[in-house]
């Protein structure tokens, strides 16, 4: 186990009925529990049946719930989301799996012009309780289109909810909350963390999926991130602590709605904020967080909000992803840069 995941696992040791499982298994369990709880819940996606999905997230579900409820679809992402919309119109709660982030774009039209808008378009008459599971992010050494982080493209679309778990406990409960939401929810699953083990408490729900959570308290600077980078941020905070910097780590968890109050509250306290994500910083979601925190906490900030993220380029060949993706050092560099402003500008 790496230092970063060890640091992360420590966060979840105080739960009452602990069950150790990897993040992918936690989602599998959440899907099974929702399929059991509500006969209107269906799963549809590519290779989710006999194979159990390319990441095995739906492993054995078809054997348990049958091919009518765990539906292998033709290889057509627009068709998957379009048919989920029709199912939702008829009262079902479909859960779509899009195989990889880079393959969501054939469905982009159905998601943004239809799924996101139908409740609004019909003056509330036709809700769209559709969940889209979307494995995202890099660091898996794969080929093109398998490592992207498209959250900003969806965040900009009113009508969608977007959440992203960073640990198995959240993965279990966020998946269940997403399926139970009356709105369309995109669950961005951090695919490089599918094998991350953690403690899942099946009896005690995680905090509301649409809120941010402070994972590590600190006083000198706030580091806000989400999904795959949360363990990296916790590890960076650990290193910084050894250097005498007290870093508060926030797991943003929900992209839309954004719990900007929680982040601004922390930034106002520490007076510094660094936002990190794998997606390119240019036009990225970190800019939204930076703008909102600047508006809310301007007079309390000792430094501008800084961003750590990917570069303005297509996701590079994965032979170069170690240099492209934010890591502990890139986070530490930004944290330090945040202090430079304070010493030069004074408070």
């Amino acid at each position, binding site marked *: 186990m790496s230092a970063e995941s060890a640091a992360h696992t420590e966060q979840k040791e105080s739960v009452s009925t602990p069950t150790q499982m990897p993040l992918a298994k936690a989602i599998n369990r959440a899907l099974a529990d929702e399929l059991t709880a509500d006969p209107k819940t269906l799963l549809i996606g590519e290779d989710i049946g006999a194979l159990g999905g390319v990441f095995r997230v739906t492993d054995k579900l078809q054997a348990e719930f049958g091919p009518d409820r765990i539906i292998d679809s*033709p290889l057509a992402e*627009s068709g998957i989301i379009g048919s989920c919309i029709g*199912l939702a119109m008829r*009262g079902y709660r479909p859960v779509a799996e899009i195989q990889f982030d880079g393959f969501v774009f054939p469905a982009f039209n159905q998601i943004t012009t239809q799924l996101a808008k139908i*409740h609004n*378009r019909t*003056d509330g008459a036709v809700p769209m309780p559709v969940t889209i599971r979307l494995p995202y992010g890099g660091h898996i050494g794969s080929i093109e289109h398998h490592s992207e982080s498209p959250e900003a493209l969806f965040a900009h679309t009113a009508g969608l909810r977007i959440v992203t778990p960073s640990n198995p406990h959240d993965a279990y409960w966020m998946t269940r909350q997403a399926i139970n939401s009356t*709105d369309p929810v995109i669950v961005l699953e951090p695919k490089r963390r599918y094998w991350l083990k953690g403690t899942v408490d099946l009896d005690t729900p995680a905090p509301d999926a649409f809120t941010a959570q402070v994972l590590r308290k600190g006083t000198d600077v706030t580091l806000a991130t989400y999904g795959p980078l949360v363990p990296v941020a916790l590890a960076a905070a650990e290193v910084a602590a050894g250097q005498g910097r007290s870093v508060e780590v926030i797991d943003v968890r929900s992209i*839309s*709605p954004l719990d900007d109050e929680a982040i601004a509250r922390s930034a106002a306290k520490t007076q510094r904020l660094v936002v990190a994500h794998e997606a390119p910083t240019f036009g990225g979601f970190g800019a939204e967080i930076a703008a909102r925190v600047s508006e809310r906490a301007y007079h309390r900030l000792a430094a501008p909000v800084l961003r750590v993220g990917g570069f303005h380029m297509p996701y590079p060949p994965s032979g170069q992803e170690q240099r492209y993706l934010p890591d502990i050092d890139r986070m530490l560099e930004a944290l330090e840069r945040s202090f430079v402003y304070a010493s030069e500008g004074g408070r």
Partner: protein
Amino acid sequence: MSGVELADPVPVQLLAEDGTFTEHPTFSRFIEGLDGEALRGLYRHMVLERRFDTEATSLQRQGMLALWVPALGQEAAQTGAIAALDSKDRVFPTYREHAMALYRGIKPEELMGMFRATRHTGWNPHTYNFNGYSVVLASQVMHAVGWAMGIKQDVATGALKEGRAENEIVLACLGDGATSQGDAHESMVFASSYGLPVLYFIQNNHWAISVPQQTQSRTPLAHRAAGYGFEGIRVDGNDVLATYAVTQYMAEQMRAGAGPKLVEAVTYRMGAHTTADDPTKYRSQDELEVWKRRDPIARYRTWLEAQSVLDAETAQEVDQEAAELAKDLRTAVHSMESVPLERVFDTVYAEPHRQVEVEKAWLKDYEAGFAEEGRVADQ
């Protein structure tokens, strides 16, 4: 997996342009059940829709509508198809299915919400079992597939709700232009793979704004069905009886579990694509004249009169009713009010969303500020 025969490229026709009737070995029987009242009903509905349509164009010209999408010339295709369905069958329309919408009872002020730009969808789709108009081409035919998957699942699990039926089918409307969309293809793949009761009803009106149907397809559109493994038929879409009969023929098999089918109704858009369009720039007067002679209402009326099903007095009553409908439309359009922006905020999500709530509250405060300034100025 067996092959499917290609549709006859010559459209099925019962009523010729001049109103003469020819028996068809397969399709005649489907109109045998139509009595005088039902036959007059088809006529009445086509006349009403045409009057409604021309009135709407006038209203747009007078600045009362943001846009109008005329269905002029397509009255028979739409009326024949919708009349052949059961009210339990869900319809997924494009944005031009006015005859179908009116047939299902959608009110003028509801239909016009979109065109007066007071609402996006002016009716509750569940009330009329008729979905909202879909503006993004072919997106709706994927939704039709999902609805049909739901029918299948309802039947399999014994979860049919009251008012629903085991043998429901779904009407998925699209035009010749929309058949080029990827969603049209994906929809037909899904419907075929899962054996879903989706009836694709393509109104081939020959023009996708300014682009002729030959640019969309080099084969009859009905032939595409065979590639997916289901039956397709070409029908004269300006022949209300043939369209009714072919739709019934398809529906009958589908209710017995035959899976998806496709009807290509060959018709013509007599008007512009929308009121923002000028068809004289891309199509000839000669072509228009040819299609004027194929007018769906004129030929049907000729036949009805020859059969003594329609007399002059009844025809006049229908015209009077059409004039009333036009008047109702005009009145409705003048009194329509836009959905308030507050309501738009409230329906972005079904459940509370922090950013929407904050922005709604901000707008309220911001506008209240102007009201206060106004009071100060008044004093």
